[in-house]
């Protein structure tokens, strides 16, 4: 993941680090290239703008340009801003709430909600020894509920028995009820995919939230998303107040700009990343490590930090 960005940014910034003196024009030229690299990695334009503005502001300060190693200082500024954009520390799923803790999954069609529901359930079961109940509230897509049921069998996690004809909100209520009776620690509600401008479905989503009082609402989004990432993240966040992001298909070709965009516009942490289709293919997200990797220059940064 992020290899593409890493290559591009790496070579742009390498061009700077070797230099003994830097002018404002040098910084601007480099930032134009950074801008392009970010856009080509699908970082949303408004996020790119904010990013390059901030870097420029800090980098053209007199102490930076007049310092002994101005290039390295600029690299560190880019690095720090990248971390600012990605969030510095990894944040996991929060289960500090009275049982059953409800986790609600939302997102666009086909983003990976159902698969991620299975993965999270498996992880909480295996690693944290939680008793988990999954339920599909997707009464729309053909065989959506059956899909989750099969994942339950595969992962050996309980799923709510399917009752045909129930509405999503009723299923939500029934799930919480069943979890209380069944002594489950965690409930994961998998919802139907929806576009963020589909008003009835966005309303339904808010209604499900009211009925189930989730402790976590995770927006599951495709890391291959383009410029629309900011719109969708903002809209979902405004309508239900997401508590975190899950980026799927990070096993794709490595641009992943959407990850940066969505974190930046919502301020919500990327809690997990999907790295494959199998139930075990999910990882925690470590922003600092990623920022280091994107720049491919962890060493320079630590050098500057020591100095």
């Amino acid at each position, binding site marked *: 993941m992020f290899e593409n960005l890493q290559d591009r940014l790496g070579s742009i910034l390498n061009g700077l680090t070797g230099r003994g003196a830097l002018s404002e024009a040098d910084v601007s030229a480099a930032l134009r290239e950074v801008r392009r690299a970010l856009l080509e990695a699908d970082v949303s334009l408004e996020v790119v703008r904010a990013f390059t503005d901030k870097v420029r502001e800090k980098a053209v300060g007199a102490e930076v340009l007049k310092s002994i190693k101005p290039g390295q200082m600029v690299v560190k500024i880019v690095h720090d801003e990248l971390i600012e954009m990605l969030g510095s520390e990894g944040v996991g799923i929060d289960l500090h709430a009275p049982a059953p803790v409800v986790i609600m999954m939302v997102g*666009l069609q086909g983003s990976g909600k159902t698969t991620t529901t299975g993965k999270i359930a498996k992880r909480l079961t295996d690693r944290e020894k939680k008793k988990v109940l999954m339920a599909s509230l997707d009464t729309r897509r053909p065989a959506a509920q059956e899909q989750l049921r099969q994942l339950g069998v595969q992962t050996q996690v309980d799923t709510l028995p399917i009752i045909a004809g129930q509405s999503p909100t009723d299923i939500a209520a029934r799930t919480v009820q069943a979890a209380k009776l069944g002594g489950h620690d965690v409930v994961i509600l998998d919802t139907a995919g929806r576009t963020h401008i589909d008003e009835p479905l966005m309303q339904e989503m808010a209604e499900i939230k009211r009925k189930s009082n989730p402790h976590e609402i995770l927006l599951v989004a495709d890391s291959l998303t383009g410029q629309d990432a900011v719109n969708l993240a903002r809209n979902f966040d405004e309508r239900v107040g997401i508590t975190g992001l899950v980026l799927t298909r990070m096993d794709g070709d490595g641009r992943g*700009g959407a990850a940066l965009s969505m974190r930046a516009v919502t301020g919500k942490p990327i809690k997990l990343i999907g790295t494959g289709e199998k139930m075990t293919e999910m990882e925690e997200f470590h922003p600092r490590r990623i920022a280091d990797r994107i720049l491919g220059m962890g060493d320079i940064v630590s050098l500057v930090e020591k100095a």
Partner: protein
Amino acid sequence: ARTSSQLTGQITALFTKRKLDEETLEDLEDLLIQSDLGVETAMRITGALSAERYGKDVTGEDVSRIMAAEISKVLSPVAKPLQLDLSHKPHVILVVGVNGTGKTTTIGKLAAKLSGSGLKVMLAAGDTFRAAAIEQLKIWADRTGSEFIGTKLGADAAGLAYDAFEQARAKKSDVLIIDTAGRLQNKAELMAELEKIVRVLAKLDPDAPHTVLQTLDATTGQNALQQVEIFRNVAGVNGLIMTKLDGTARGGILVGIAAKHKLPVYFIGVGEGVDDLEPFEADDFAKAIAGLTH
């Protein structure tokens, strides 16, 4: 819809009686980038605009119109209706693409169109990997009155494709549509599996699969270019369908794809319902990108 009206507003604001200069061209380029055209394609379009109007007085309306025309010029050659050569019996359609891009749903919609025009259609559940993918396609088959062939989860997809072809022949189906599991184009092993499906079908008829359709998700960014590149090489994609255009994504990546690959774009998906598949209209699509409609 919202992005477009935003776009229109921005363009109009930029061009109330202004000369077309470097700065405004750059702003225009930004607007195109926000529709996912990508930096290079956006620069090409604004370059064309600049060649025509640089230094002249232009209004927002002018600019939108010229941009739409430039984009349409690229897209028009690929806007073609899907025509099936029915001398192949059955005409075999293989549907491929990255995970979740809308393959199975599009097959359902397509089956409805084909059987609506009186053809005998069979659907084959070639996604033997994803949970309930088989059941999902079965429901679409029932909905559209199509014949259905499937196997067990975990079974060999190429084997199923072969059996489906034989059965469709035996049952004298006009069209056989084969669903496949979603896969990322950078997974060599999964792409090899797709290649095998194509190879196996060709054993029964060297021309099969006769049509290979790839679905692209309109919300996808620059990655879609590579998706087409690789799927085309591996599976011989000869037609595209862009799905999920009912959201706010404009699908601008299609402009670069059209310029590079010149593959026909047959349909666009505009919803999850059986009728939400529309012919691809270059002008409408271009106008939406340039902020002239919605």
